[in-house]
């Protein structure tokens, strides 16, 4: 049986399974629900300066149980209302990572500052939403902007800064390097992959926004490739996300170089009980691989000396 505690920089989680941003993330009670169901920690919905209703429905499309496409449009209650939600989750004992998004470096910095007094253990910069114009992946696709935003947030807060990257780039590790140089404490990879669904009879895209982001098992190979490439080029910890729904999936991410992971879509396909199931699978399967601690596995599929 492997010890499941996971360390991401200076932070320790009871297990490496964090709730991904945007899933069960609007209400503090839901965040807490994921923690009670076994998550090691939770990431908030991405919060902006003002409340946002997001896009009209349809906002999701489903492909069997292996893929979801969504374009929620970053609905969120705004940074003034949200601390109350974080309070609820924190009072229940859940470690909360506060995810934020903004169109400019200054606004990112202000949001991060506003997160500080809420008791979050880190801020995650969503530089990667694939469908919201001017918010997210336009920044995340440009190393200069990634640097700027990361540096501004780094200066504004003492909190650990996690930078969440998009896979919709030629070379994700280049963006990770930019974030690392600008002072990021960790890289989260990946956000959803740009995709589109079309309704033939109606001759129109399914999602009200047209383009959306693909999540679920379909993107696991893509997330693993990104984590792998990032691990080869940066030293800061990596939090892996994308298509995780089993203990084996987590082990693959650890071996590729992640120190912790986030679980999103599986909360819908497998219910929130997915956290405790994955945790017990992980304990058994990591044990069978001879790992005493999860860090024994981190990056272990890479050639060369381990960095565990």
């Amino acid at each position, binding site marked *: 049986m492997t010890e499941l505690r996971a360390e991401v920089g200076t932070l320790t989680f009871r297990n490496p399974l964090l709730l991904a941003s945007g899933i069960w993330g*609007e*209400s503090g009670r839901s965040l807490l*629900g994921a923690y009670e169901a076994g998550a090691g920690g939770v990431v908030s919905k991405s919060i902006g300066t003002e409340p946002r209703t997001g896009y*009209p*429905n349809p906002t999701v499309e*489903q*492909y069997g149980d292996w893929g979801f496409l969504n374009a929620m449009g970053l609905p969120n209650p705004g940074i003034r209302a949200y601390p109350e939600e974080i309070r609820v989750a924190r009072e229940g004992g859940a470690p909360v990572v506060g995810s934020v998004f903004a169109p400019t470096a200054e606004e990112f910095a202000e949001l991060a500052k506003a997160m500080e007094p809420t008791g979050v253990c880190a801020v995650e910069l969503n530089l990667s939403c694939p469908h919201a114009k001017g918010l997210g992946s336009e920044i995340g696709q440009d190393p200069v902007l990634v640097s700027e935003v990361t540096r501004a947030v780094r200066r504004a807060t003492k909190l650990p800064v996690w930078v969440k990257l998009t896979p919709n780039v030629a070379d994700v590790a280049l963006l990770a390097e930019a974030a690392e140089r600008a002072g990021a404490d960790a890289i989260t990879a990946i956000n959803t992959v740009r995709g589109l*669904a079309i309704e033939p009879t109606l001759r129109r895209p399914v999602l009200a926004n047209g383009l959306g982001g693909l999540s679920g098992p379909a993107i696991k190979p893509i997330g693993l490739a990104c984590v792998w490439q990032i691990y080869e080029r940066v030293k800061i910890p990596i939090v892996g996300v994308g298509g995780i729904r089993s203990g084996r999936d987590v082990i693959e991410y650890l071996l590729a170089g992640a120190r912790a992971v986030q679980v999103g879509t599986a*909360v*819908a396909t497998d219910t929130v009980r997915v956290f405790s199931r994955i945790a017990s699978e992980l304990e058994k399967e990591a044990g069978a691989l001879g790992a005493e601690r999860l860090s024994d596995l981190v990056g272990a599929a890479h050639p060369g000396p381990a960095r565990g």
Partner: protein
Amino acid sequence: MSSAGLREVCTVLDRAQETPSTVTLRFEYPREAHPGQFVMVWLPGDDELPMSLSYTGREKGVTVKAMGETSRRILDTNRGAKIGIRGPYGNRFDLSPRRILVVGGGSGTAVLAPAAEEAHARGAAVTFALGATTAREMLFAERLRPIATALHLATDDGSAGHHGYVTAVADRLLAEAAFDVVWTCGPEVMMRKVLAAGDRASVPVFGSVERQMKCSLGLCDACALGPYHVCIDGPVFPGHVLQGLEEFGRSKRDPSGRLVPV
């Protein structure tokens, strides 16, 4: 075989004006559904809204009340129009009780009607207390009369049945006769009163609840209600659960996730 989604485009087979503000659309949607469950109705180019199934057989139906922009547009939908349907989602009414009191308020009766019909078909005795603002807005009274052990109406303006709230009728019925269960759907203030009445009579109540919905898959949190998600844990909840929820009857989340008064 195909990697297509779970959404189907259905043709509106029939449109029935139930009341001045309420319309039923019928369509063929082959998946099995149970009374209490809802579907997501997509009006292309507009929006997609959760709607309880008011008919759960092969030819399914939704009964829509004009509220905001999208529901109004759904009302304007004509026979032959194409709408997207996905689902059914959510849980269902337990149809096993033998003596059932159905307390419907306004368009809330939409979800109660197929449950009552199916329970009646299985031999239950169903008593109805249906409320509306005025006689012309009374939903499904004629549909339900043939299966009713008793059918009691109430209107805010006294234009039909009891002059006043339907909850007063329910209170009286619960005092007078024995029921195994109460089913209710309507405005939350109304449902709160029905829950209290059930408590007084020691009869369990089940209420169908509405909240903002986006994914209806337990993913996005739009429908959060305390520790529950209405799309997967509901929409039907036991009364004691609803009573334990600070938010029920008081606040709900708007599309941005902010808590606002119901």
